[in-house]
């Protein structure tokens, strides 16, 4: 199905309900779907499980969702930053659950969900606190931890262009989590600078095929 082209970020996120699990792309500011996160803030959905590399920074985006206690649980690799004060406060108050995952396992678990893999043995984290309680196995003399897929209801991601069929291209290191998150969510919601006609993206350079994309909103580029 060709994706829905939403008229606004608010319209793009309108189906997100309380209790949803949401993958949010971005690493630092690169690839952060800021307008979609702001719209999620405005739409009022609460009791969310959020998957992101971090746990919000300063007083914007994900940090505000956490400040307002809209996030029940966060799955991330690096919550503690110099400006993660809203997370820190919520965490110390016991008002947010944290599942800490090494960054590469986080990425691979998201990919596994999109790829229909039931679980995989990864060497990352073997012998560490983050493997406690998890199944481990020594294969050919090397230790591995069994990790499970991270499925989600929604993904909020940012790409450079979408065509009208939802094919996406990204820009530089803003690609980061976008392509895998699009595959792992029941609905991938994508903000782009521009929507272009089908056929104007070379089939060889499509990074995310349109099959993974459900909703697109064009917000115009900053450059």
């Amino acid at each position, binding site marked *: 199905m060709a994706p829905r082209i939403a008229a606004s970020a608010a319209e793009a996120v309108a189906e997100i309900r309380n209790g949803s699990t949401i993958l949010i792309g971005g690493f630092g500011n690169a690839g952060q779907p800021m307008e979609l996160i702001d719209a999620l803030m405005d739409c009022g959905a609460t009791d969310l499980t959020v998957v992101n590399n971090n746990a919000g920074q300063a007083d914007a985006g994900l940090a505000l969702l956490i400040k307002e206690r809209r996030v029940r649980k966060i799955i991330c690799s690096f919550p503690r930053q110099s400006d993660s004060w809203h997370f820190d406060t919520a965490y110390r108050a016991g008002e947010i659950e944290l599942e800490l995952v090494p960054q590469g396992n986080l990425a691979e678990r998201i990919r596994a969900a999109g790829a229909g893999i039931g679980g995989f043995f990864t060497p990352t984290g073997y012998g560490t606190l983050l493997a406690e309680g998890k199944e481990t196995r020594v294969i050919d003399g090397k230790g591995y931890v069994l990790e499970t897929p991270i499925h989600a209801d929604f993904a909020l991601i940012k790409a450079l262009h979408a065509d009208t069929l939802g094919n996406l291209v990204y820009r530089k290191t803003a690609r980061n989590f976008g392509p895998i998150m699009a595959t792992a969510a029941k609905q991938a919601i994508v903000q782009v600078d521009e929507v272009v006609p089908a*056929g104007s993206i070379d*089939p060889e350079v499509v990074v995310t095929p349109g099959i993974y994309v459900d909703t697109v909103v064009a917000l115009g580029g900053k450059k």
Partner: protein
Amino acid sequence: MSTFSTTEAKLTRDEMAQQVAADIPAGAFVNLGIGQPTNVSNFLTEEQGVTLHTENGMLGMGPVATGEDIDEDLINAGKIPVTELAGASFFHHADSFAMMRGGHLDVCVLGAFQVSKDGDLANWHTGAEGAIPAVGGAMDLAIGAKQTWVMMSLFTKTGESKLVEALSYPVTGLGCVSRIYTEVAIFELAGGQVTVRSTHGISFEELAERLPVGLVKAA
């Protein structure tokens, strides 16, 4: 969809393909298996906006290529030269099968040796003594899509039903088939129950008599 209907004549192969094509939801992402299912593409309309996947690494596959359009780098899973449509994309084999295995395709249409009432599929290996086994993407296709439909003749040359209580041929995938198109009937499978959606050149009662599984007539 589940209103029972009947026609006097058996369905031809083209009519079967036409029926499958008509049943594919608008906008669906579809993989058509090698053989009979490939013919379905000839009956898809442009308005349906169906996107075809070929597991060797492409979405947005167009019709079979002819003449100057033939390009040996642009083939389908049956190794036939094809064309690409506007908005196509190419990807490698692991990404392509991840797309299937991850349940992103809406419909996969396959041929079969046998289907059980529980939707178990046999289509990769006769199990005959001395036969060289070959599986290709059959097992991935069987379990990958949201819905797996089968196109087959209902009876073997010796008159035995290919819709069975339990498979006698080696399994391709368990509980994966939800619909079967044959020249004499179309079946819906769900929860071990076989519903006959239509019969063609045979009455429901005759059909029920000839098949080794219990049948329910669509309301």
